[in-house]
């Protein structure tokens, strides 16, 4: 890979991690001393994606705003990597009027028509709409693609299999991405899934399936490049499974008492690993125009600006609670 491309992947991963760390801080700051899930500046459940940055960064590097992404209930990394407006996304997470959904959606329901980004709080159910977006792209004779994301636990849902079959049948430009972080909430993959890799399941639908084993952003980038090129060329869907890492709990407040792999988790963090790799290759430096510190500072500035924007934005007027159930035709 070219140094610029590698730096691009790194920047995206740093931005995501910085964002998630900041949201984590804001989320918990106002919920103490006794954890109250509905209290504070960011109410409700919070599913953060730290550790899964390589998947979003590697896949979305191949996309433009014309391509569609449907993400899961853990959507921030894909939203950021796909270029969703950070300020409006943050305002939505804070439940503010300037949010992507004017405070109607929340962090699991982010919709950005400008980048064709959406996500769903229901396991695997983002797959069928992505197939439909791909159908629209195909019918209009474009080379646009749709990327559908699930976790490995969702690969046991009917929607997953129906969507794969339909996309394969109609040769639709979809790339199915499975984030295998080893855990479906508290249930390990070994207790939920009968195959060692969901990439094997692609074979059942006659489409290519590839598993990226080591949470390497460059390996994801390569696999996604093949799949997206194939989709753009009208050759149909592919599936990529990435063995990634859930660095934190399923949701914030999850004590992870069930988790048997916690001890080894910090050592598997993909961000320092990639940083080390780029330093060794001479792509990242501690002095000069572009440094580790300057990339971190830029990310921090953007995230701080987004959080400030969200905090400045008013909460929605209760008198508007019934708005937007129906479109005015």
């Amino acid at each position, binding site marked *: 890979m070219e140094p610029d491309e590698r730096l691009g992947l790194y920047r995206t991963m740093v931005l995501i991690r910085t964002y998630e760390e900041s949201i984590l801080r804001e989320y918990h700051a106002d919920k103490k001393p006794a954890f109250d899930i509905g209290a504070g500046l960011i109410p409700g459940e919070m599913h953060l994606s730290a550790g899964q940055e390589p998947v979003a960064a590697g896949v979305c590097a191949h996309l433009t705003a014309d391509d569609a992404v449907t993400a899961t209930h853990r959507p921030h990394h894909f939203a950021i990597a796909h270029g969703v407006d950070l300020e409006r996304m943050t305002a939505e997470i804070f439940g503010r009027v300037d949010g*992507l*959904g004017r405070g109607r959606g929340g962090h699991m329901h982010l919709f950005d028509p400008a980048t064709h980004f959406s996500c769903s709080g229901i396991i695997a*159910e983002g797959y069928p709409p992505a197939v439909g977006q791909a159908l629209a792209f195909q019918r209009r004779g474009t080379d646009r693609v749709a990327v559908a994301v699930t976790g490995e636990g969702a690969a046991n849902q009917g929607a997953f299999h129906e969507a794969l079959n339909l996309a394969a049948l109609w040769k639709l430009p979809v790339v199915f991405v499975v984030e295998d972080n080893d855990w479906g909430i508290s249930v390990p993959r070994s207790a939920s899934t009968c195959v060692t890799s969901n990439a094997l399941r692609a074979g059942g639908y006659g489409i290519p399936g590839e598993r990226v084993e080591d949470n390497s952003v460059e390996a994801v980038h390569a696999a996604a490049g093949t799949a997206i090129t194939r989709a753009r060329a009208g050759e149909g869907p592919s599936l990529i499974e990435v063995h990634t890492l859930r660095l934190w709990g399923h949701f914030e407040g999850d004590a992870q008492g069930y988790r048997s792999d916690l001890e080894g988790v910090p050592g598997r963090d993909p961000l320092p690993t990639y940083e080390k790799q780029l330093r060794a290759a001479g792509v990242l430096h501690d002095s000069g125009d572009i440094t580790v510190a300057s990339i971190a500072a830029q990310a921090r500035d953007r995230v701080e600006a987004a959080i400030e924007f969200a905090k400045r934005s008013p909460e929605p007027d209760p008198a508007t609670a019934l708005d937007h159930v129906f479109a005015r035709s």
Partner: protein
Amino acid sequence: MTLTDASASSSAPAQRKLSTAKAMVEAIAQEMERDEDVFVLGEDVGAYGGIFSSTTGLLEKFGPRRVLDTPISETAFIGAAIGAAVEGMRPVVELMFVDFFGVCMDQIYNHMAKIHFESGGNVTVPMVLTAAVGGGYSDGAQHSQCLWGTFAHLPGMKVVAPSNPADAKGLMTAAIRDDNPVVYLFHKGVMGLPWMAKNRRSVGPVPEGEHLVPIGKANVVRPGSDVTVVTLSLSVHHALDVAEELAQQGVDCEVVDLRSVVPLDTETILDSVGRTGRLLVVDEDYLSFGVSGEIVARVAERDPGLLRAPAARVAVPDVPIPYARPLEYAVLPTPDRIRRAVLGLVNA
């Protein structure tokens, strides 16, 4: 363009007559000609023409690029319709029997119906979800329900149910042009199918060319002074039959065809009850927590003084639809049950 007003559909000036099924297909075909973004997908909508003839002839006319037979995968193809609609297309997607909604309900109520709201109005989902409803031909508990109350209970989708050919065309045209998801429920018993006992009003005059029936506007299909019968779909015909019969005995029924369950035309109902002072709701859906209860509640909330007698309901008494003919007819809102309910009201 013709625009059916509250009283015009039964006396539409059109010469030619069509079955409800053909009227529905005509609307889809005209909209497909008018707008390249309209397309049809679902099970057996192609060469078969729809199990209930809801898409007959479309494949021949528009080809397989715009009339897509799907696998038996309701979650996938209804979800695909949602994705296509989000991208600005206008799919008409058929869920063969409404009873099958359970296998794909997440796509319907969590996605189709909520995306517009969750996006704060920034994303629209302009699609039509069609399904056949209703019993009366011994198809058993999993193929005979109406269930419009279920969809109506969940916010974010419009719900329409035509009773006659002209409305079938007009409501379909309006549904396709609507920027919201519209659930379009057609009763097998009003389609004019060659293989079912035919309701005599299942073939009727239908305006040629563009014809719209506004969604959310009920129709007073028979004016009367003694009792308001509020109903929809096939039960409209039972109610009209009963009204004609009772007129001989000096009981004058007003029959209101709801046509739209969401939005519900409360004003037309209240106007009618204000004139007659008596309300009977006839609903082929289950009795409890449904359309019939909603209508009685709206009248009671607005002005219980409108009622000279307690409101009455004829609906399916909270039992799955039985198979055996005498059992099924014991629970359906038959003309006999409607007649007894009307007489009960006027003699109260």
